């Protein structure tokens, strides 16, 4: 479904990502791990169109997407979350979810002004979808709160719900467990697995929480200093000497 071939990203003299390759099949959870500053988020930024990669190809469902504007990539069905939660803080929880569904909404101004039946129908559908996902992540009671006032764990869940209402084919999660307590991490674990099992979404995951990564990943890619270090199943990665060295330092 997603194929990244020899992706490179250069910032002036710094080669942040060097020849990274990656592939994700349908209904698969693939993790990218690596020490801090390894270039994981840069890979994400290239994939989601925030950066224009300086080399390599990114194919999403057979279509080259490298260098496309971010909003177009997102409309293809590749949606991401951010390392630091990025919600629309002053808008309510449900408004956050409505904004995300704009490509499903009739954006014709006149239809909206008059309130044609077609427009109302779409609006109602998007409200239902928002309600469904709020219920799914346990935030339905807080639907009319300002998103910025939610607790951190709730904000994380809202961000995932906001991606899911866009009905993506692939979800890119950038450190979703950062700042969560063990119980919340466990919930997140179940949520991500259920996204794959019940909603047929592929997931690309950047995460430092090894128990989460090992638990739910189908395959893992390790990046170190911008270069691919290893890839394989969690079991293979766990026993890979290079990976151990990169993470624990040379003995």
């Amino acid at each position: 479904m997603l194929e990244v071939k020899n992706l490179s990203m250069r910032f002036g003299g710094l080669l942040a990502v060097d020849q990274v390759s990656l592939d994700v099949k349908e209904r698969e959870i693939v993790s990218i791990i690596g020490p801090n500053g390894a270039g994981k988020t840069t890979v994400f930024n290239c994939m989601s169109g925030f950066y224009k990669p300086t080399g390599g190809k990114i194919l999403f469902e057979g279509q080259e997407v490298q260098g496309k504007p971010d909003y177009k990539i997102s409309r293809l069905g590749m949606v991401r979350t951010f390392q630091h939660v990025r919600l629309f803080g002053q808008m309510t929880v449900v408004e956050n979810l409505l904004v995300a569904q704009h490509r499903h909404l009739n954006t014709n101004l006149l239809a909206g002004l008059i309130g044609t039946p077609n427009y109302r129908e779409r609006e109602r559908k998007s409200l239902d979808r928002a309600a469904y996902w709020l219920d799914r992540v346990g935030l339905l009671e807080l639907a009319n709160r300002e998103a910025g006032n939610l607790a951190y764990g709730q904000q994380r869940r809202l961000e995932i719900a906001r991606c899911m209402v866009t009905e993506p084919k692939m979800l890119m999660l950038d450190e979703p467990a950062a700042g969560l307590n063990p119980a919340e991490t466990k919930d997140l674990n179940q949520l991500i697995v259920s996204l794959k099992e019940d909603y047929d979404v592929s997931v690309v995951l950047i995460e430092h929480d090894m128990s989460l990564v090992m638990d739910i990943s189908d395959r893992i890619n390790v990046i170190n200093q911008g270069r691919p270090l290893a890839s394989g199943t969690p079991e293979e990665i766990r026993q890979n000497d290079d990976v151990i060295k990169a993470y624990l330092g040379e003995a």
Partner: protein
Amino acid sequence: MAALNFKHALFCAFITLLISYPILGFNLEAKGINVTIVGADTTTILGVLLAAVVVFLFQLFRDQIMGRVGDLRSLTAGKPKEPMAENRRAKIESWVLTGIVVLALFWPFFMSRGAVDLATLVLIYIMLALGLNVVVGLAGLLDLGYVAFYAVGAYTFALLSQYLGVSFWVALPIGALLAAAFGLVLGFPVLRLRGDYLAIVTLGFGEIIRILLNNWTTLTGGPNGIGGIPDPTLFGMEFGRRVKEEGNTSFHETFGIAYSGEHKVIFLYLIALVLAVFTALVIRRFMRMPVGRAWEALREDEIAARSLGLSRTAVKLSAFTIGAFFAGFAGTVFASKQGFISPESFVFLESAIILAIVVLGGMGSQIGVVLAAIAVTILPELAREFSEYRMLIFGAAMVLMMVWRPQGLMPMRRIHIELKKQE
């Protein structure tokens, strides 16, 4: 702490003296061709000293005084009362608003001509502020050249009527659409800019339009402006004493009533009222539509908005265009009300006042903006005697607002959305 306060107070008092004494304490007097400096009389000097003492005392006991102010605020604003049920409040609100509009419809028939004239001006400012509210309050794009679109609307009507004899009702949509087109054109180059940079570019655009109007003498008449702009007609009925245009009839003759200059003023007021209500309703509707939510999303977090598939270009341009559209509306009404326009009416100060209305009212809040427009337009009229100190009062009001209600008179309230429980 006390010593620090004392030092600070002394410093402030000194600054007060330093600034006010040279300004107020010396007068320049012309003797023949020479100018000599004469010291002011004792009362002025005493006044300056008194001011310094007041500043000193205020700074010395600042904490206590501001503490009291804080108490006051908790008395007025933060009443811990149970909020009304959302749907009930919405119902009451809509009734009250309808009542006010109906009242506003009949009000001019019992008022003096001057008051109605002033009210028309207020309504024009309401339209402008509501339009700018879209750009600044909702989309978060600081536009300092908003008056340019106002000017486009006004000049469109003036020029069309002068050269082509177009009437008010035809010029109204044309003026608004042309202003919207200018909004679109300005929107393109500033798409990438944010915050301060955007403010500077829009400021420049406002000035360009004004200077263009000032210098393109062959078309616009330059600083002399354009006069003789016709009044609006009501189904071909004119409000003047005599009919100016072929084919029209006059209002007072048709209805068989005595001519009165007030008819025209009231009619203009009613047009402005209808247009202001129209503006408010349309923008209110926009706010609840996807486009309105997109504006706010872009204001809150542009990167997140783009990652969800919102096109920055489309969202920003729509905000600029719609804001400019309503400025064009207001401009056309303004031209018709004045009967004469010149670039003088579209200086930067106008932009600043409209922006001040939006900020005072509360960014994004429509009711707040309307209240602020009324306050900002009427207060200077009431305080005509102090006209020298108008800007001073204006500035003081701004400072007080920032202390008391930094979020504006009536901060924007989120729309409550009922969700059905899912099975």
